[in-house]
C-alpha cells in the first residue's frame, strides 16, 4: 500500500544480501548474491572462483604421473574417486594393463570413499538444518573409513593411492578385517539413522517439497548424480558405461521421483547401502596375485589421440578429457565436474523460495566448490 511515510512499494524495496563467501553452510568458498523481497528470494547469482588453482593448466605442464596428487584436490571429499578416474583415463589412453587384484582393491577403496563423502554430506546437511547430533554420529562412522584408507594409502583425505597399472601398495588381512568390521557396524547404524533422521518430522518439514527440480530443468543444466536420480532418471555411469569392473557386481541404482530436497537425501542414503553391497562382494571375490603391473615407465608417452573418460564420482558424472600429442605430458587436460551443473541449476531453483529454505536447498545439492573452481 502506498504510504507517504514508507514510500511506494517499488524496486528499492528489493535488497541484496551477500551469502558467503565464508558462511558455515556454503560448503566451500561460495558467495551467493541474493536479491530479496522480504524473506523471499527474487534472484540468486552465485559468485565462484575463489578456489581456482589452475588444475587444468597444471595438468598440461607436468608429467602424467606428476598430476596424480592434483586429482584428489579437486573434490577433496571424494579424492579417491577422482584419483581412480584419472588413472583409468591414462591407462586407456596409453593402453596399460591392470592386474585383477588391483582392480578389486581400487573398487573397494573408491566405494569406501563414496560412503565417507556421503556421510560427511549427511552430517553437515543436518547441521545446516539445526541438528547437531547426527553430525557427531556421521563423523564417528566416517572416521572408521578414514582409518581404513589411511592404513593402505597413507593419507586421510587427499589420496594418491591409485597408480598407472595398479595401486601403490597391497592390502593385507588387517585391511580386510577392518572393512568387514565397518560393514558390520554400519548395518546397525543405517537403522539408527533411518529412525532418528529419515522419519524425523522436523527434518521432513524442512525438506519435503523444497527446492524441486524436474527432469527437464535437470537436463537443461546438465545435472547428474544423486540430484538427477532424485527426479526419477535412473542414470549412473557405473551402469550406463561400466568402467573398471563395476559390471561384475550386483547392485541397484536408487531413484526417487519428487526431485525435492527430501528425495535427494533419500537417494544418497540408499546409495550408501548399495556401496556397502559392492564392497561386500568385492571382498568376497578379492583375488590373489600382483597389485601392480611391472615396468611402467616413469615418463608415459601415450600415442597421439584423445580419450574422454567418464566415471561416477560421489556427486555425479565426472570425466577427464585428455588429448595426447605423443609427448610426456597431455596437450589438453580438461575435467568435467558434476558440481558445475549441480550448482548452476540453483539460478532457477532459488527464486521464489524463502531464504531459510535456500540453506536447505544448497545443502541438499551437495556441491563442492573447489571442484567447480579447479
Amino acid at each position, binding site marked *: 500500500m502506498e504510504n507517504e511515510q514508507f514510500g511506494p512499494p517499488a524496486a528499492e524495496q528489493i535488497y541484496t544480501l551477500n551469502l558467503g563467501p565464508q558462511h558455515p553452510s556454503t560448503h566451500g568458498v561460495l558467495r551467493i548474491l541474493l536479491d530479496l523481497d522480504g524473506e523471499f528470494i527474487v534472484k540468486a547469482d552465485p559468485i565462484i572462483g575463489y578456489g*581456482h588453482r*589452475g588444475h587444468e*593448466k597444471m595438468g598440461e605442464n607436468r608429467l602424467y604421473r606428476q598430476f596424480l596428487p592434483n586429482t584428489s584436490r579437486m573434490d577433496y571429499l571424494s579424492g579417491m574417486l577422482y584419483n581412480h578416474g584419472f588413472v583409468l583415463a591414462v591407462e586407456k589412453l596409453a593402453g596399460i594393463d591392470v592386474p585383477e587384484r588391483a582392480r578389486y582393491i581400487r573398487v573397494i577403496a573408491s566405494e569406501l570413499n563414496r560412503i565417507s563423502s556421503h556421510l560427511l554430506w549427511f552430517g553437515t546437511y543436518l547441521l545446516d538444518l539445526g541438528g547437531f547430533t547426527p553430525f557427531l554420529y556421521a563423523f564417528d562412522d566416517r572416521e572408521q573409513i578414514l582409518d581404513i584408507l589411511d592404513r593402505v594409502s597413507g593419507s586421510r583425505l587427499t589420496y594418491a593411492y591409485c597408480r598407472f597399472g595398479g595401486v601403490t601398495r597391497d592390502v593385507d588381512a588387517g585391511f580386510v578385517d577392518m572393512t568387514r568390521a565397518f560393514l558390520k557396524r554400519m548395518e546397525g547404524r543405517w537403522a539408527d539413522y533411518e529412525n532418528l533422521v529419515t522419519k524425523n518430522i522436523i527434518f521432513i518439514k524442512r525438506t519435503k517439497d523444497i527446492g524441486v527440480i524436474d527432469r527437464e530443468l535437470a*537436463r537443461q543444466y546438465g545435472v547428474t548424480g544423486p540430484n538427477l536420480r532424485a527426479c526419477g532418471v535412473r542414470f549412473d555411469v557405473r551402469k550406463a*558405461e561400466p568402467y573398471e569392473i563395476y559390471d561384475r557386481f550386483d547392485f541397484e541404482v536408487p531413484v526417487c521421483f519428487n526431485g525435492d530436497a527430501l528425495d535427494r537425501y533419500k537417494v544418497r542414503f540408499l546409495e550408501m547401502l548399495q556401496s556397502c553391497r559392492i564392497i561386500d562382494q568385492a571382498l568376497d571375490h578379492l583375488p590373489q596375485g600382483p597389485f601392480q603391473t611391472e615396468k611402467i615407465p616413469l615418463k608415459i608417452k601415450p600415442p597421439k589421440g*584423445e580419450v574422454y573418460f567418464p566415471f561416477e564420482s560421489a556427486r555425479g558424472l565426472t570425466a577427464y578429457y585428455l588429448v595426447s600429442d605423443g609427448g610426456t605430458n597431455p596437450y589438453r587436460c580438461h575435467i*568435467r565436474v558434476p558440481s558445475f551443473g549441480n550448482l548452476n541449476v540453483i539460478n532457477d531453483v532459488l527464486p521464489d523460495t524463502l531464504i531459510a529454505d535456500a540453506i536447505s536447498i544448497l545443502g541438499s545439492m551437495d556441491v563442492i566448490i573447489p571442484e567447480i573452481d579447479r
Partner: protein
Amino acid sequence: MKADEMEKALREEFPGALFAVDESGRNGVRYSVLIALSGMRKAAQILNAAGFFLETITALDFSDTFELVYHFNCYEPKSRIALRALCGKDQTPSSLVDTFRGAGWLEREVHDFFGISFSGNPDMRSLLLPEDADYHPLLKSFGKSGDSHKREDIYGK
C-alpha cells in the same frame, strides 16, 4: 537408440561433416562430428529436441586455430556425441544459452580460459578468474607450457 537416430539426423543436416564412429564407445564418445562453426546452433537444437543434455564445453588451442568441443549425452548407455568445430583465433561463435540454459556458465569458463567470446550470451563476466583478469591461462602462450602444435600434427588432415 537415440544416438543412432541422431547420427542419421546430423548426417542429413550436415552432409559435409566429418564423422568418427566408435560403436563400442571405447574412448568415451560414440559419434564425434566435426561440423562448421556456423552449424553448431542448429546441431545443438537437434540434440536438444531429442532429449540430450550438454555435458561440457571446452576448447583446444592449436597454433593455427581453436577447436571447440561440445560433449552431449542422453540417459542411455554409451550414447555420448561430441560436436566439434574449428574456430579461428578471431572468430566469435554463437552462444547455445537459449537452447541449453546450462551453456551460459560453460561458455563463461571457455571465455575465461581461452578468451573466446560467445555472441548472444547475455552474461560474459568472468566466472572462475578475478573480475579484472586480462589473461587467459589455458592459451599455450601463457606461462610455462609445452609446445604448441598445429591441429593436423595431432589429428591428421
